[in-house]
């Protein structure tokens, strides 16, 4: 029992090691082919997504199905046995995929049906037709063995060297085309009308882009299958967009993401042969997408959230220290506050709580994080006292706040009762340069050091 399970683990590990070390010729072939497929998919997909034609790719792949079936049936009728040839099947797929695309364009152009409806109609029509024809194919003698279902669900392992050559050549051509007409494609995607006004044949450019998308879709059919091939075109550019605001960077990043997710998918599915390669490829792409969604430098959720969080932290911290200062200020009477004098008095947390209207729960968090950052410390009686660092920061915060308040009072007609709140929002974004400017402007109004508050301080009345 024990032995056999150890053996299983051992052989699984062996299998995995074989897969990732690319010891098998077959794995290498499949890996090369699908990686190139991922790269070209990412490049073409970038423009497709920016042109807002994402769904069109899905229509093309589904529309390929009846073409595959018809090509098989015709080839078998003309020359029995020739139906299995990949090139025959791909030719059929190409023809009907293109027909499906043309049909959506025609519906959009000549009727008032909206694009999404047109796409759905064509997709349903072609896929339904394809499924019907497939039952016919299954009934033929050779149909079952022809591996036509590979086109639906994909089987990367069925790739042979000649397929990889085909994919490689097509990918290189597509990458070169993308570079060559990069300017024109970007103009088409950004402002089609301006492109037309400048004399570009936008219809032709559009067709070129469509043709490239159809081609990638078709060479991807075999490995990923028609249900999932659209993901090769859409996931990489959408993931790349989270990292950059530059089209060039975005397209190369999309190519890289496409390549990596395809390579990763092939290696994983070689290590775990029971998993379908197409699904694993798409899932590893989706994994990279999620990573980009969360961590993407330009638009990811985490960078956005953490910036916001840092800002709120900063505001909360300076509000807390200002409240401490304003609580201690009356104790000083007419004496000047100093960094040292501020650290001498105990701060009662209930009195501190009364200084501002803190959102519930926020006060405790702010106090404990201030203690953690050694701005406040607890003393022997359980109260708080400012540290030297905390006192220095508190003085800065108060000075900033009051300078801004005085500025509002002297330079605008703001009601003195509203000045506190008006200053609250702005003071946190003042930088040292602006503070210096403020001081210069307020020169005549300023006493030395920290000016007194121009209004009664809320909460201080309790003292």
């Amino acid at each position, binding site marked *: 029992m024990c032995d056999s399970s150890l053996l299983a683990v051992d052989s699984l590990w062996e299998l995995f090691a074989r897969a990732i070390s690319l010891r098998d010729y077959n794995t290498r072939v499949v890996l090369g082919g699908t990686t190139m497929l991922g790269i070209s998919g990412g490049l073409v997909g970038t423009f497709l997504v*920016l042109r807002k034609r994402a769904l069109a790719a899905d229509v093309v792949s589904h529309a390929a199905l009846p073409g595959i079936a018809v090509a098989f049936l015709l080839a078998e009728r003309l020359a029995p046995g020739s139906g299995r040839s990949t090139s025959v099947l791909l030719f059929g797929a190409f023809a009907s995929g293109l027909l499906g695309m043309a049909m959506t364009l025609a519906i959009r152009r000549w009727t008032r049906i909206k694009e999404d409806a047109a796409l759905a109609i064509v997709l349903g029509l072609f896929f339904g037709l394809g499924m019907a024809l497939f039952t016919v194919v299954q009934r033929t003698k050779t149909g079952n063995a022809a591996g036509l279902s590979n086109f639906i669900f994909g089987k990367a392992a069925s790739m042979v060297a000649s397929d990889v050559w085909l994919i490689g050549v097509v990918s290189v051509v597509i990458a070169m085309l993308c570079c060559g007409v990069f*300017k*024109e494609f970007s103009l088409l995607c950004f402002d089609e009308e301006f492109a037309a006004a400048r004399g570009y044949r936008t219809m032709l450019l559009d067709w070129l882009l469509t043709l490239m998308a159809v081609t990638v879709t078709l060479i991807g059919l075999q490995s990923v299958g028609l249900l999932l091939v659209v993901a090769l075109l859409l996931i990489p550019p959408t993931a790349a967009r989270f990292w950059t605001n530059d089209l060039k960077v975005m397209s190369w990043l999309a190519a890289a993401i496409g390549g990596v997710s395809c390579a990763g998918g092939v290696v994983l599915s070689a290590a775990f042969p029971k998993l379908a390669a197409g699904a694993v490829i798409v899932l590893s792409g989706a994994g990279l997408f999620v990573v980009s969604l969360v961590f993407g430098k330009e638009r990811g959720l985490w960078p956005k959230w953490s910036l916001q969080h840092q800002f709120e932290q900063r505001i909360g911290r300076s509000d807390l220290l200002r409240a401490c200062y304003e609580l201690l200020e009356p104790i000083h009477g007419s004496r000047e506050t100093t960094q040292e004098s501020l650290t001498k008095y105990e701060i009662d947390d209930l009195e501190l709580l009364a200084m501002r209207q803190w959102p519930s729960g926020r006060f405790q968090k702010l106090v404990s994080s201030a203690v953690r950052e050694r701005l406040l410390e607890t003393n022997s009686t359980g109260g708080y006292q400012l540290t030297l660092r905390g006192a220095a920061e508190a003085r800065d915060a108060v000075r900033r706040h009051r300078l801004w308040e005085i500025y509002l009072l002297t330079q605008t007609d703001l009601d003195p009762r509203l000045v506190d709140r008006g200053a609250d929002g702005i003071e946190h974004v003042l930088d040292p340069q602006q503070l210096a400017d403020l001081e210069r402007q307020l020169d005549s109004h300023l006493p030395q050091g920290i000016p007194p508050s121009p209004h009664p301080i809320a909460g201080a009345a309790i003292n």
Partner: protein
Amino acid sequence: MNESPVVDQEAMQEPPTRMVAIDAVESASPILIEDVTVAYHRRPVLWNIDYQAPSGKLIAIVGPNGSGKTTLIKAALDLVPRAAGQVLFFGEPYGQQRHRVGYVPQRTSVDWDFPVSALDVVAMGMYRKIGWLRPVSRKYREAAKQALDRVGMVDFANRQINQLSGGQQQRVFLARALAQNANLYFMDEPFAGVDAATERAIVDILRQLRESGKTVIAVHHDLQTVHEYFDEVVLLNMRLIAAGPTADVFTPDNLRKTYGGKLALLDQLGEKMAQPRSR
């Protein structure tokens, strides 16, 4: 041996004739619109428009919503098909004079969440000049920067376009057209949704263009500023109501004809043509 002098002679004679041809084009009106009719889905939106623009003027196209102002520009630039009529630029069809005609579309006609910088957008105005298969070289980047400088946006050259305000986006669009260095400019609502500073900046640019002999035709919505900004007015409401110098044409009477009182007969006709089989 005998043929070479003949060739030389031709080469000698060619330059003068070419000069004459260019002169003829030069003297022609920047735009001549002859009997243009446009229909969308069989419903006519412009009827028999005839108009000849004077050179070196700022011209406003004014009319209520749906009066075909934008359509007139698009029909002139071959962006929508004309049901009838022709348009000549400097005496020739648009296809031959494209480089001398600049176009500033409505700002809202594009998705500003596109991953390009302000400089990239301005460079688009020169893509034709740069040509196929070539990247945007340093020379053109400099030219794009100069165009941005003219609209006071050079500091924003590398800014991603969705981080620009509406007014700044409009200036970038303007710079894209300026980079093309055309002789005639079409602008579709250049003042729509911009702040006061941008409006002043755009007006200054329009005046500079006029001073250097260029013609500007702009769709304009704010009736109060027509007198101040524009030399000529085209009043449009499916048909041409009036056109000419602002002082003569922009009158209460003409405005009433343009904005007030539905043009009942045209409306009915349009309705009928839209549904030929229903009655």
